[in-house]
């Protein structure tokens, strides 16, 4: 079972690079959503079945795989932006830095011991590497939507770690954290909407001001 989980975690790591290397926003959102679905499936593979676990699996897949991506895709459509332009950190440097961070994450993880039942899992390096890649996207991109994608990548990294605690954390905490994330992305979506409206409305308001004179 653990080897399957490890393969999925490696897939998560590869998806990080997909986000780092692309300028197309819709593609990044899909990559992050796919990562979210993998995150939802992982606890089901690693831990034995329980209703508590089933609830977590369903809610993570729903939130990260469906609701949040839809919110962002809608924001992208409304703002009529398809691509990231002139990022602060270019795509090739992003990929190189991402690779560097991923290897550093493996070194960092080697210093921290896992409890016996999690031995051999790549959870910790995958979690830290995803967090760092998310941070890289957040810092390196210019568009607000790209920054939200970076934030989601970071959150995914944190949820990967949550995998180790999936059967130990109270449901309320997990649900609360997920709800906060949802509301957070929702608020960010509204703000993005206002940003695009503000910057197109500046022109029209100027036009009316001239007319009055």
């Amino acid at each position, binding site marked *: 079972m653990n080897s399957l989980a490890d393969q999925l975690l490696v897939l998560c790591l590869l998806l990080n690079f997909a986000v780092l290397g692309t300028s197309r926003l819709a593609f990044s959102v899909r990559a992050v959503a796919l990562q979210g679905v993998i995150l939802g499936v992982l606890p089901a593979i690693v831990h034995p079945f329980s209703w508590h676990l089933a609830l977590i699996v369903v809610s993570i897949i729903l939130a990260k795989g469906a609701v949040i991506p839809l919110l962002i895709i809608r924001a992208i459509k409304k703002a009529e932006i398809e691509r990231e332009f002139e990022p602060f950190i270019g795509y090739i440097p992003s990929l190189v830095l991402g690779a560097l961070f991923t290897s550093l994450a493996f070194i960092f993880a080697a*210093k*921290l*011991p*896992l*409890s016996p039942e999690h031995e051999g899992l790549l959870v910790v390096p995958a*979690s830290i590497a995803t*967090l760092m890649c998310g*941070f890289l996207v*957040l810092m390196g991109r210019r568009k*607000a939507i790209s*920054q939200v994608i970076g*934030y989601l990548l*970071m*959150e995914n*990294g*944190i949820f990967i*770690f*949550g995998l*180790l*605690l999936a059967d*130990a*954390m*109270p449901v*309320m*905490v997990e649900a*609360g*954290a997920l*709800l*906060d994330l949802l*509301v*957070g992305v929702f*608020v*960010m979506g509204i*703000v993005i909407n*206002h*940003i695009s409206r*503000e*910057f197109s409305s*500046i022109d029209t308001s100027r036009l009316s001001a001239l007319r009055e004179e």
Partner: protein
Amino acid sequence: MMWAIVLFPLLGAVIAWLVPDNRRRSFVLPVFAVAHLAMTAALLTKTPAASPAGWILLDPLGKLTLIGNSILFTVCAFYAVGYLNYRRRRQNRVLCAALLVCLSAMTLVSISQHLGLLWIALEATTLTMAPLIYFNHNARSIEATWKYLLICSVGIAIALLGLFFLAYSTIVAKQDVTLLLPTLISNAAHLHPGWRHAAFIFLLVGFGSKMGLAPLHTWKPDAYGEAPGLVGALLAGGLVNCALLALLRVYQIAVASSEGALFQQVLLVMGLISMAFAAVFMARQSDFKRMLAYSSVEHIGIITVALGLGKGALFAGLLHMINNSLTKGVLFLACGNIHRAYNSKSTQHVRGALRRTPWSGALFLAAFLAITGSPPFAPFVSEFLIVSSAFVQQNYWTGGLFLTFLALIFIGMASTVLPVVLGEIPADIDRSPYRDTIHTVLPPLVLMGLVLMLGLWIPAPLQEILHQAAGMLGGDA
């Protein structure tokens, strides 16, 4: 009763949302604020025992935060009625509802003993503040909101990872996994050191960015500068204390483990760095609301230094937490009035506030003197205690740097505040309808009275709570 105090403001938020009339809606705020204050008083006199699972308990540290927030919110609620009267055309439905939701979340922060629950409440305060900062709906405020939302969300996400690390350190140490504070404190010494260490670092960075410890403070000047005065007051006096309480919970665990000394060392350095940043950026600040943000960074630094010093300084640090939040309330509300009266917050245009708005000008001046640590106001007492405790510990470097930064900050802040309050009113500025009225002056005046009172006399019950709280952090009880 414990749940009532959290749920009651939410009821207020729903009512505020449903009231159709833009002018009458603001009256919901003081009604619920006063009720919240009364419930706080009731909880303080007769504190209920912990909830069955141990998640909810009002301990002395929580009491301090709750008192400060409840008083500050009540004052801001009364002020809001007067303020919104001046901004009748602006839709205030979201503002009123979000303020009350934020009050509920702040209350939950102060009573939760489960770190997961505390995290959720803290994140909720972050999110509810976003629409409040965006109240003015212009390009500048949206930029500030975006910066605030992103940096604080990232910070708080990092803190969540820190909490996960902490929980995992209990698994590695072969204990039942938990994030309940009392259990964590009693087992702190047996947690796995590597994971515990990593957890402390992540939690410090996460909560530090929410508190605005330098160099994680970059969102503060924008958010404080663009938010309306009363929102600024709640950010600088209320939310900061909530994040600080979260850090104090981590501090409790750190002190109980073997890493207390190291953790304190880190806090000491970060506190001094924050003060240094504030001293540098305070000088020649041309926007007096942004200047207040740096003052907030400074005072967070002061409190962090006190935590870093430990022992006797803890009492003073906790006292400063209350003093800072009350004084910041006066500063932001007075600033909001002056901003309104001049329609500008640039020191080029705003001069001679003492003539145009005598009360607000005088309050701004008095609060400036108070916050920079002049006697007989309350911050003087707490800052003096912190410095003297540094020297008692023979930590001369800290004491010396602390005093130097305070002096620099005094000069920097005075060079902005004095012209604003005292100078000549420029001839070419616009007229504005705002004049001081009882609604917008009395609330900060009451707060100023409290700041003065705490400087001269600390009531015995408050003193007792402060001592108990300092004892919880490992200080001299």
